[in-house]
């Protein structure tokens, strides 16, 4: 056995300590440069007229809430505020919806890094149980992002029951995403960054997944499900999947979700209503609780998608607290009569 001399030992120890010190310094630097969410306007080459007037982001402040959403500007470009597509296979529903919104190129500039955030809550339900987003809806979005020129498309969620890898496989999402060339990412504990929520009324700070904040494009793909506290879990609530501490949000869930939505701004929300879960959400488990609607609802306005999908459950937008808070904070429009809705069939 080779002998480690005292000198060698000390040398190694000094090296190790040096590395640790450098690491510590870098760690200290990191806390100063806490990444902040960029407004949609900062995305390279984004053609959305809605954001053309937004000022360049400054690290010290977030865009004011009033600048966050302006669906009327989108409408002025000729696109509907919200698209509903019914009757058809999941991929056809998605393609029709995105086409009606102006095509994926409107959201995904060439070379952009894209994150698709489905709802993959547990590892023990296949997609038929409507606990997890339809795999073909997710897969088609990945495919279309690449067709629009995305440089990378990552798909991620943080399941609360079972491991992420198992959940990705069981839900069927991994297969469709990988077939489309996308990457399934198991979210890493170390990639959450402390994020201030200046516009937040209740939630002022939370740890958000770094990659989600840094991605050029965020596509939010929830599935319509019932939830005992939130009433329904749709687009706005789906973003809870990218924060570390979700349980503390339950104390004032509606406001906390709206607050979170001021810093995480998906470029596009596509609510999967191919199947919806009408009872025992969010994890389900009874096919009797599943209703097949063969519908997707898409918009750049996350408040609008959630408001519309509420009606598919026989509810009013205001029945969802977070929708009410979100509309009040200027995150989007919940009054369906004020939206230009394209109701199509695939």
């Amino acid at each position, binding site marked *: *056995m080779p002998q480690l001399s005292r000198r060698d030992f000390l040398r190694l120890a000094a090296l190790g300590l040096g*590395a*640790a010190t*450098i*690491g510590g310094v*870098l*760690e200290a630097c*990191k806390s100063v440069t806490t990444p902040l969410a960029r407004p949609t306007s900062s995305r390279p080459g984004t053609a959305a007229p809605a954001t053309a007037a937004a000022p360049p982001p400054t690290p010290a402040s977030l865009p004011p809430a009033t600048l966050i959403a302006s669906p009327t500007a989108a409408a002025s470009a000729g696109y509907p505020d919200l698209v509903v597509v019914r009757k058809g296979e999941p991929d056809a529903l998605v393609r029709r919806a995105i086409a009606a919104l102006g095509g994926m190129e409107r959201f995904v500039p060439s070379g952009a890094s894209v994150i698709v955030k489905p709802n993959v809550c*547990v*590892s*023990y339900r296949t997609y038929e149980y409507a606990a997890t987003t339809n795999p073909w809806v997710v897969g088609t979005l990945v495919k279309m992002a690449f067709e629009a020129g995305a440089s990378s498309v990552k798909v991620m969620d943080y399941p*609360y*029951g*079972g*491991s*992420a*890898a*198992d959940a990705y496989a*069981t839900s069927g999402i991994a297969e469709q995403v990988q077939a489309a060339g996308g990457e399934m*990412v*198991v979210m*890493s*504990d*170390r990639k959450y960054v402390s994020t201030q929520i200046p516009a937040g009324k209740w939630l002022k700070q939370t740890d958000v997944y770094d990659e989600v904040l840094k991605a050029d494009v965020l596509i939010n793909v929830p599935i319509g499900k019932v*939830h*005992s*506290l939130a009433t329904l879990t749709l687009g706005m609530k789906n973003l809870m999947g990218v924060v570390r501490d979700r*349980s*503390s949000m*339950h*104390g*004032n*869930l509606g406001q906390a979700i709206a607050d979170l939505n001021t810093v995480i701004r998906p470029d596009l929300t596509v609510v999967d209503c191919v199947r919806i879960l009408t009872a*025992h959400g*969010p*994890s*389900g*488990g*009874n096919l009797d609780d599943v209703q097949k609607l063969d519908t997707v609802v898409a918009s750049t306005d996350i408040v609008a998608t959630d408001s519309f999908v509420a009606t598919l459950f026989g509810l009013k937008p205001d029945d969802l607290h977070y929708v009410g808070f979100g509309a009040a904070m200027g995150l989007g429009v919940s009054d369906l009569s004020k939206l230009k809705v394209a109701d199509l069939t695939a």
Partner: protein
Amino acid sequence: MPSRPGWVRSRKAVQAVALIAFAGLFLLARRDGLPGDLVNVPMRLDPLLTIAGTLAARAFMIGSVLALATLLLTLVFGRAWCGWLCPLGTVLDMFPVKVGHGQRPAVPEGLRKVKYILVVLILFAALLGNQTLLFLDPLTILFRTLTASVLPALDQIARSLGDLLSQVPGLDGPVSSVDTAIRPLILPAEPVSYQDALLFASFFVALVALNALAPRFWCRYLCPLGGFLGLISRVALFRREVSASCGGCGMCAEECPTGTIDPARNYASDPAECTVCMTCVQECPLATVTFTPSLSAAEGRPYDPGRRQVLLALGATAAAIALFRVDLFAKRQSPFLVRPPGSRESNPDAVALTSCTRCGECVRVCPTGAIQPAVVQAGLEGLGTPVLVPRLGYCDYACNSCGQVCPTQAIPLLSLADKQRQVIGKAYIDQNRCLAWSDHTPCIVCEEMCPLPDKAIKLELQEVWSPDGGTVSLQMPHVVRDMCIGCGLCEYRCPVSGDAAIRVYVPQLAVPI
């Protein structure tokens, strides 16, 4: 002295292969790893575990025939298992603790007796349905230490290192790739914690440190498996012989790792102590040492346990087991002594105790770290048996791995559908600590988590008193006892700090009246 190619080199090669195989099967004992029947092969090769398990459970597992291979090996070559195959023995060989430059303190030869007495204790206790002392089996020691101490500690180091390196510009990507590509193959997906990880590590370190008193101290004096194989080796076919041409240089006695070569007896050795390491065969300058077939039984040694000592051991075993069974613990077990799925059902009396050999395969394979080796929770008798601690990890609704790896079916083999119906325990809400019940704070996390299709936790909308003098409308969780299976996901995720406000208790057993 330069080592010549030969026996010692071959033995070391075999040792390395066996250790790597053991470590490989250890790492692959996980969900999506190798099939359970393959990963528990080392445990089944261990004849002490197998025979004690068979005696205690009074049931023969077909996989137990593997132990015959080790018995046969021992009947032909003596304790070759110890010298050539045992992974713990190999690890002990790797740490030859040197003490200064002087002589080691003399260890009394009589200490060799301990391992034989342990064999008597273990086998007799097994006959009486107790396997507590199997926590001293070398394979269970190594496996448990790797599971509860070494791997989690390595995981900690890897995580810290990853945290550090990912701060270095440009290394973020590679670290991520390692995290996604390599980590899941070796380390737990989520950090897992084991109660008394430090204790298991200390025990192991102490065992290695005993090498300072004598090489392979554990194997010489204490190891019950070594003792068991040693007893068989007394009638083994091949025996170490020293021919008449021996020059009496004493080199073999000096080099023998078990110190069994006695210069006073013409350098003869005790087959029960010799691990067939072949060092003496290779090192003898006159090549006088051979292993030759012999049909006679080995002669007795002063340290062999006497009749009186064996009788004393038998009596002590019977007394100890009787005391275990009148101990308060046997009458009133901890309400939190939740066992892995099905083990309580299959052995309604003593649960995992009778057929559990303390091998720790279930602890290793549990993906969430829910299954923990008991130290005190299951009483002295239940040392090393598996307990499910939901605050540390939950029983994954999509997993039935523990029953698949258990070599004795102390945890029964359940299909996933059966496991999803298997009652492990029952959740109870502590309304004095529950956020909804006591703090008037909306929280439905337990209901949300419940994996059952119809949810065993229901919410009741109540108008309740609020501190400002008015009332507030809140959803109050209730557990539907008949539905709850006790998976513990609610307890694991309960946002209350410290002990959860919803806890899984041992289910009520049907008590015959």
